[in-house]
């Protein structure tokens, strides 16, 4: 169910009205659970059982990690994590393994290749792992223990909501248990922060429906064999456009998720923080898909040893984390290469930083922003073209197609639809230079209203053809 579909709006309105209906207080959580399951089942009813199985594993393991026999707690936690990962590996990577290791025509190979990809599996699996690990780590901390209800039914309800809450069910943000569980309590209509919800939803829908959905119609030229017919300049413009599109798509989705959750009284952490202004690769990963990068750091990089076991081990840990992070995005080797490219960039950056001390001049910061953006943008090619041969062919065309015709109109539209993303990042510069929100409002008192009205007007009149969010496939 798309966030901009009539079906979703209908579901949202009904759920919202019932949720705050007087006297419904104690039914709020079950109501959200039912709405979330309907939301999931609308897209993939036949795989709803898998979501429920995953939830069941997490309910039982997290419960017995706290209330089970002392000597078995570690084993239970490990079993829970392995259970979560097994479901993810089987459904997500089964087809890739089938393609890679079983010759076509064999029954097992074909069966593996034909496995369906459950929507949002990567997200709800990671949330499950977060629940088990957080619970295991904090099993002796009183404050956290109180979040795990003594009654198994009550605990099941909490976990079901945590994993299936519809604003974040399909494409995140990946909310950690220690962040979400304390928020589960009765909510009142008067506590809804309408202004926050409205702004977040308008910006989110604008980025998704106006920017990303329109850009996708031009970046389709990046697919094989179309890219072979256009000029090198057009190919660079397309890469730039895709970089803008993927940001608008995912940041837009995350903002919508934040706004929707806030309507029901829940807060999610921000997922994007002006990523294209990053001055280093580590800075980029602190700004892009923050919930994933912090998950990888907290639950993978640090347990692997982080940077505590010497430089060589640090580089290996970085590479391993990023390759696995890349594979998390999709079951294709190009995603692993994408992760490796980022891992190499992070490792290289650390190596340079260890030996060379660069001055903090502002021109150098600008150069760094351009370099990081350029590298990140070229790396998106591995996202757009999961077939590695096509990536190489695109790279070749970048050099060979200088005499091919320019797609002037497409380049023009890419430029137009990229303006909002650039303006959004420009706002970061203003903020960095000390022009905070209040100062801007004082200087242009109606700026906020003008921007929000313009965005709402464009959502109504200039939305692109609707499509799923890019991150739904992960």
């Amino acid at each position, binding site marked *: 169910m798309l966030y901009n579909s*009539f079906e979703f709006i209908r579901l949202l309105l009904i759920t919202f009205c019932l949720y705050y209906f007087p006297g419904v207080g104690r039914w709020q959580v079950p109501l959200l659970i039912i709405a979330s399951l309907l939301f999931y089942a609308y897209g993939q009813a036949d795989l709803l059982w898998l979501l429920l199985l995953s939830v069941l594993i997490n309910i039982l393991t997290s419960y017995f990690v706290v209330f089970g026999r002392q000597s078995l707690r570690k084993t239970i936690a490990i079993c829970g994590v392995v259970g979560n990962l097994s479901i993810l590996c089987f459904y997500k990577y089964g087809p890739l393994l089938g393609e890679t290791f079983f010759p076509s025509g064999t029954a097992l190979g074909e069966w593996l290749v034909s496995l369906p990809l459950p929507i949002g599996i990567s997200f709800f699996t990671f949330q499950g792992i977060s629940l088990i690990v957080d619970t295991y780590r904090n099993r002796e901390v009183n404050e956290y223990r109180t979040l795990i209800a003594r009654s198994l039914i009550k605990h099941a309800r909490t976990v079901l909501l945590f994993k299936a809450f519809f604003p974040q069910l399909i494409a995140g943000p990946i909310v950690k248990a220690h962040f979400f569980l304390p928020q589960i309590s009765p909510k009142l209509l008067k506590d809804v922060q*309408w*202004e926050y919800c*409205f702004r977040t939803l*308008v910006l989110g829908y604008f980025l998704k429906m106006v920017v990303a959905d*329109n850009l996708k*119609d*031009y970046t389709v030229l990046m697919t094989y*064999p179309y890219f072979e*017919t256009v000029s090198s300049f057009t190919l660079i413009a397309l890469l730039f456009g895709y970089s803008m599109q993927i940001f608008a798509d995912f940041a837009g989705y995350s903002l919508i998720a934040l706004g929707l959750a806030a309507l029901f009284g829940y807060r999610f952490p921000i997922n994007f923080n002006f990523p294209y202004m990053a001055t280093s690769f580590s800075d980029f990963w602190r700004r892009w898909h923050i919930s994933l990068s912090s998950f990888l750091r907290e639950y993978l990089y640090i347990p692997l040893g982080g940077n505590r076991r010497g430089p060589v081990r640090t580089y290996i840990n970085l590479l391993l984390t990023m390759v696995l992070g890349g594979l998390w995005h999709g079951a294709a080797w190009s995603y692993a290469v994408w992760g490796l490219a980022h891992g190499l960039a992070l490792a290289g950056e650390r190596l340079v930083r260890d030996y060379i001390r660069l001055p903090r001049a502002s021109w150098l910061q600008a150069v760094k922003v351009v370099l990081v953006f350029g590298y990140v943008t070229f790396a998106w090619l591995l996202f757009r073209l999961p077939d590695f041969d096509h990536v190489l062919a695109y790279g070749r065309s970048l050099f060979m197609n200088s005499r091919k*015709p320019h797609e002037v*109109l497409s380049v*023009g*539209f890419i430029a*137009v*639809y990229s303006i909002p993303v650039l303006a959004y990042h420009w706002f970061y510069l203003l903020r960095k230079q000390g022009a905070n929100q209040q100062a801007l409002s004082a200087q242009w008192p109606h700026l906020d*209203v*003008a921007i*929000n*009205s*313009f965005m*709402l*007007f*464009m959502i*109504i*009149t*200039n939305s692109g*053809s609707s499509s799923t969010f890019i991150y739904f496939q992960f």
Partner: protein
Amino acid sequence: MRKTLLVTFLLLVVYSSWIHKFGHTISRSAQTIEQRNIVKAEEFLYESKQNFDTLILGSSLSSRLLLDSLPNGCRDLSFGGLSAREGLQLITMSDRTPKLILIEINTLSLPKSDFLSNVADGSYWQTAKKYLPFFRQKYQPVGVLKALVRDWHYGKTRTIIPETAFRVDSAVRQRTIYEFTSHQQTQADSEFRCIFGEIKNQVNLLRQRGASVVFFEVPTEAELQTLPVARQIRRYICEYFPEPAYTHIKLPQEPYVTTDGIHLTYRDSGRFTAYLKQQLEGSMMLANTNR
């Protein structure tokens, strides 16, 4: 929030007034092929002032025909990447019936797209589009801006022919031919019977509403015209719509040049349009429609 909603409402009112006053001067505002298809369909459904005697249904192959060379009242309802089936569905859904319908047969074997569900799904969304034109794709501000800039730059009356209509890309042409000829299979007869059964029902309905129907084929590269699937389509056309009950315009004998293997060059589009016109006149169809 209230201020924002109020200002947005005002913006919509102002824009609606602008569309009401100047909307008829906007043309070719679509930004992509998909959008061009939707704009065509929406114009057909909602702009009731537009008159036409002849409708051309087909794919991007037909959209290159030079309508200026055909008599007034001839309108192109062909959709890029799709087939005449979508056009037929659109006419049967609407209450408008042209006097003559020209159906391009080249791409009839393509699976039917669901793009019409975005245009005319019979819901309140369709009603909203009918009465509030700013919901239509044609009036998307960025597209309108494009149209205004283009008209200002090139002049309103000038027809702009895309560069691609002149450029013969031999490499692409060869590859297209190779890709088509390497798939020599025909489609399953059951599938074809289903497709042609549906077309037959729609055609009969339109004939009952007073329309004449003519089938034609746009020339492509010689190698592609003899593909098994192309022969299969011709065979089914003859079986389901036999002459003389239905009019068929045969492929011209002379070779035609394409830019990419399937789409005619601008010059040859003109040649084929002239041929089509001559054949139609020959079969007295135009005479009937011009009565």
